[in-house]
């Protein structure tokens, strides 16, 4: 919003937006000052584009004066409009001030005429819309719509695994272990340590770590991996305890150990 051209009229003007319609339609029968102006304009009995805004301003001001003498309380809107129209009227009557900024009096008058015409057009359009052949009044939808039948098929999902797991769960409830692990293919660090402690006495010379893998654990990759890892970890533990020495020529080369 640009700065208003004219000083703000010292009329009461709520600077908060109206919360509801209650405050607005204070002139009985009129839906705001623009509506009142439109009604007054119609009394001129000319095309709204040909309206004399000057005459309209006078009509409006006369109306407001009349309301005052009748002690009708006018809402702030109407008073603001009155002030603005009084200003517009004076501008229209005076010769144009070449130094004046902003819209000319003619522009302002034209805009008011446009607003009135637009409101009028919308009002006509609303009437035309309401006058159309409306659904449920002039045009009808199918009175007995056929609802789409929904057939619900439930497909139960259960696989053999679910079934076996359920059974297994039931059958092993008694041997409940808080944490169970399938250890068939796992050589644990404890097992490796125990086994190496037994074997280490024979390793006076540098012996390849892989020699310490338990029997039968070099066949399948999974078992070999598990045994290798456990044995390696066990050898580190023994080295830490100072019981063995470890040696590796280079990265990825075989690791050897001997008793210390």
């Amino acid at each position, binding site marked *: 919003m640009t700065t208003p051209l004219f000083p703000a009229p010292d009329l009461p003007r709520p600077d908060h937006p109206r919360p509801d319609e209650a405050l607005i339609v204070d002139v009985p029968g009129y839906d705001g000052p623009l509506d009142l102006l439109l009604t007054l304009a119609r009394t001129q009995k000319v095309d709204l584009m040909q309206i004399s805004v000057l005459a309209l301003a006078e009509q409006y001001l006369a109306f407001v004066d009349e309301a005052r003498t009748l002690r009708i309380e006018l809402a702030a809107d109407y008073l603001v409009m009155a002030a603005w129209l009084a200003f517009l009227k004076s501008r229209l009557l005076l010769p144009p001030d070449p130094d004046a900024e902003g819209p000319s009096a003619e522009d302002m008058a034209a805009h008011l005429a446009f607003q009135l015409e637009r409101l009028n057009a919308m009002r006509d359009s609303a009437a035309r819309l309401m006058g159309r052949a409306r659904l449920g009044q002039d045009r*009808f*939808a*199918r*009175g*007995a719509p*056929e*609802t*789409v*039948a*929904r*057939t*619900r*098929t*439930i*497909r*139960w*999902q*259960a*696989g*053999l*695994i*679910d*079934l*076996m*797991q*359920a*059974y*297994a*769960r*039931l*059958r*092993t*409830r008694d*041997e*409940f*272990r808080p*944490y*169970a*692990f*399938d250890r*068939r293919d796992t050589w644990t660090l404890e097992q490796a340590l125990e086994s190496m402690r037994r074997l280490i006495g024979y390793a006076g010379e540098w012996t390849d770590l892989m020699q310490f893998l338990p029997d039968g654990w070099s066949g399948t990759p999974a078992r070999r991996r598990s045994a290798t890892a456990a044995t390696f970890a066990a050898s580190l533990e023994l080295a830490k305890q100072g019981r063995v020495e470890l040696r590796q020529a280079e990265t990825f080369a075989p690791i050897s150990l001997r008793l210390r």
Partner: protein
Amino acid sequence: MTDEVIPFPPPPLDVQERMVEALLFASAAPMTQRDLAARMPTGSDPAEALRLLGIRYAGRGVELVRVGDAWAFRTAADLGFLMQDEVVETRRLSRAATETLAIVAYHQPVTRAEIEEIRGVAVSRGTLDQLIEMGWVRLGRRRQTPGRPVTFVVTDSFLDHFGLGSTRDLPGLTELRAAGLLDSRPPLADAPGLAESAEDADILPGNEPGDDLFGD
């Protein structure tokens, strides 16, 4: 009908036909000729209009049908399938149902008492009913023991669903163990929201006394 003078002649038959068409379309219930006549201009001939309309709609997607002594539009019977909505819902079996099914499969023929002994909780009638309704479990011969309890066995449809030639193909405990299925960690709730009903809770020890409430 009185002998009143008809102020206007009735509209032509094709207009009457349009009228009947609109009236029947908009009406919530079938309309009799009398209903139609009451709505149409005086002197109209709903019977003839209905006849013309019937011809016009013959073989269309919508047909004029007679319902008692009233008339209505109905979707052509052969197009009824268009109005069907097939909803296939996949649901997981509850844990109670899965366990009961497993027990029946492994131990059939099995009595309810035996199922309860294995599960450690009472088996609600609903669980077995559900399995029977699904066509996976059926009643077997009565056990020739005191009380002659009914036994339960699995059906061919069960074998079919689980891809088993016979229940002898079910893996034994050793094989289950080898397959890592005997991991007795508490099973994870693998289907959130589904199957996690109260029924699932019934193997929790804490719930044991409460189960009696539902036992049958």
